[in-house]
């Protein structure tokens, strides 16, 4: 019992301490080579929709393809057609390992509206030239049911199971 309790406790502690994000970085939306670096931008979820999104950057040495781990990157994200909706540009820092993959610099942000967006990958020091600018198409946000259908269905699955349980229990009682 102590072994059982300890193992469960250990796992819960490990879960609470460990990063719990999925490591899937998403789909490659573009790449570019600049100043001797190869920049690949990945986006998740795919297709991108208005709402929460995660961008990940893999920075490699263009010649050797060795991942670069010590860069400090930031993403400037802005709507290409601001006349459609007044949306302020978003600047976020991309932190290595934040998305679960230690090779990628990831940042989570909220894309407020659909449309064509441009993601500029640069160093945190804004005075340095940008490394890459990649355009992405963002679709309108999905409905709550489409985004979280599994979570929303849980109570109804539970209710159905409970109803079935009651039915089976009654049948067992009648038989006995």
């Amino acid at each position, binding site marked *: *019992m102590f*072994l*059982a*309790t300890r*193992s*469960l406790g250990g*796992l*819960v502690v*490990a*879960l609470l301490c*460990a990063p*719990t*994000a*999925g*490591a*899937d*970085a*998403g*789909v*490659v939306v573009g*790449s570019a080579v600049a100043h001797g670096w*190869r920049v*690949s931008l990945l986006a998740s*979820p*795919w297709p991108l929709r208005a*709402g*929460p999104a*995660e961008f990940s950057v*893999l920075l*490699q040495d263009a010649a*050797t*393809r*060795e*991942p670069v*781990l010590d860069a400090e990157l930031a993403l400037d994200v802005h709507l290409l057609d601001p006349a459609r909706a007044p949306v302020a540009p978003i600047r*976020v820092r991309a932190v290595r*390992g934040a998305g*679960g*993959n*230690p*090779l990628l610099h990831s*940042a*989570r*942000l*909220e894309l407020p509206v659909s449309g064509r967006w441009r993601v500029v990958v640069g160093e945190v020091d804004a005075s340095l030239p940008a490394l890459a600018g990649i355009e992405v198409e963002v679709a309108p946000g999905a409905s*709550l049911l489409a*985004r*979280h259908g*599994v*979570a*929303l269905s*849980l*109570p109804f699955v539970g*209710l159905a199971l*409970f109803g*079935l*349980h009651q039915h089976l*229990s009654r*049948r*067992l009682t009648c038989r006995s």
Partner: protein
Amino acid sequence: MDPAISELLRSGSIPLLPGLAVGLVAWLYLRGFRVLHARAPERFPAWRRGAFLAGLALFLLAIASPLDALSGLLLEAHMLQHLLLGMWVPPLLWLGAPLAPLLRGVPARFRKRGLGPFLAWPALQRAVHALLQPAVGWLLFFATTWLWHWPRLYELALRSQAWHDFEHLCFLAAGLLFWFPVVQPWPARARWPRAAMVPYLLLAGVCQSGFAALFAFSSRVFYAHYLAAPRLWAISPLADQAAAGALLWVGGSLVLLVAVFVLVVDMLEARGLHRVARPRRRPEFPGPAAVWLRGFGLRCLASRPLRRLLQGAAALLALAVVVDGLWGPAAPSASNLAGVLPWTHIRALALLGLLLAGNFFCALCPFTLSRGLAQKLPWRRLAWPRVLRGKWPAFALLLLFFWSYEFLRVWDSPLFTAWIVLAYFAGSFLCDALFSSGRFCKHVCPVGQFGFAFSTLSPLEVRARDVQTCETCVSHDCLLGNAEQPGCATDLFLPRKQGNLDCTFCMDCVRACPHDNAGLAPAVPARDLRIDVHRSGMGRFSQRTDLAALAALLVFAAFVNAVWMLAPVAQWRLRGVQDLARLDSLWLESALWVGAMVVVPLGLVVLLGRLSAWGGGVPALRGAISRRMLLALLPLGFFMWLGHLGFHLATGAGSLMPAAARAVRDTGFGLAGAPDWSQAMPQAVAGDLLSLQLVALGVGLLLTLHASWRVACSYAVARRRALGLVAPWALFAVGLYGLGVWILDQPMQMRGTWGA
């Protein structure tokens, strides 16, 4: 070593839900295995436990980093995941003979009443019987392998995390079905002759090799995703694909050949290997007492010096909040310890503590230190006024607190927060200086009532270990105390104590019991809400209007409090606050708020009570039913609070460090550097957080519906009557759930951060 590889090897991210599921399975298995190993060590030797745990560990390795981190970039990493899930994990799990231990590990009551009807369901038995046919398992395994590697489906899984998870689930399920007839975990019976398993495996090996050869020798890349993916270490997509094929070939063939070898040796050497010897009878394993949390853990929890130490630490935190609240910066509140620590961190962590363990917030409450001082004063204590008995004083204070929280913006006012903490210390001191011990906790403390009410959902409770021992006890030290230890300050007599209500987890009764008959025991969450027995210090729930009112207040406050900080409502209110001088605005808003918190709930309760009593055909019991149904709503309220406060913790957790650094720097000791205020900005949260919030709210709804149903069944014998009785309350709970879903999906004010 290459720094990138060493980073990958160091990384580890266990997905939350599968991780918790694995933890639960491991716990159930070990719980059941311990019993079965003691009874039949020949059938359940220790190596089986090792095999099962190794299978679980391999499963976690397959779905967690670094493999999962690389699976989107390298096909070979993804193929290794599939190989582990389909070929390595299932035989290890089956070698653990998990069926009996898992069933035995489930609590007996749930096994019999909860799972029993499903296990005895003929349709389910037939379906399982059909699925466990060797031919079915073999075909499903290869159908799964081929289908999921078809480029369209494979790309779909790479684009969507949900499909990716489903794909892995398919591999695991198909692997389990494939390996079941090979391993034949006890008590399974062979469907085919044992010898037939050799061609079964060899044929699988041939198919697997053919499939792997396709990848290893193809001259074109099958998956466009890997063509577009950035190449790591200059590995070309074709080389990556060939490596994936080789990996599958070698890894898959190896396990199949080992299985064939073991089978053949098994058949040649010992025909009677599966004839299990009659189990040797071992002494009875410890009964329910084994589940008591005894030993070192309980001694620590019940240790008075340790408790005083932790209370001292909590008191120091409270002191820091007071000092910083009184003399620190007033704005922005997120830069002040009094603006972040109590409202963003402690509240959410206390709720998590209630959910995972018990009411340890009360056990470590720093205000009991001032109470302890007051108790040392020599004069005679007064009796607590009869009119103030019950939960009405706490109800009124809670209502006042919730109102001031919103309308005086307590959460945004470090000064106000500091005064509240000071008032708490003074109030607890005065109460215990004037009246007999424990009155503050039992009747006055609003935070305590919050903890008491929601500790009905906790998995632990303080209980008498053996009621018969209590019957022989004449001193009742657990209640009255003795020369060395005080008794229960909230008047709970252990043999008749039921559940966690009014229990501060102080463990005074554990220390006072001369028979060592008190301890912490596992409790079924929310079970307390379903039964209506006479409880020590509480009476019956069905007769406690004050308790029902308190429960209703906590439940409705969970929703109203969250609605009030939705971005549109907050903006509307902000305009009102700017015109605070115009009292009519404040009064109007307050009137609306009181309507939402008190008037509407009261009207609803009356209406639902009437409908329910009419539907159940028990009009005379309207009051009792309403009181118990209100208590049954507590799980829904709890999970709404958890979803809401958990959001603030997720977005504002980082604000504590710069606020603490600023507070330390302001003391002039120069111990801390300049605070990094970027940490106090609202943190973007993963989309998964909303999923977790919705799952939590769903669990709350289910617990509420179950408790309501059991309450209804206790008043109406006929099922139709019980349905009529529960229907209005169940519909109301579903409506509250819908409201909660809508609230959680709205943009919420980032309180506790610089974005508030």
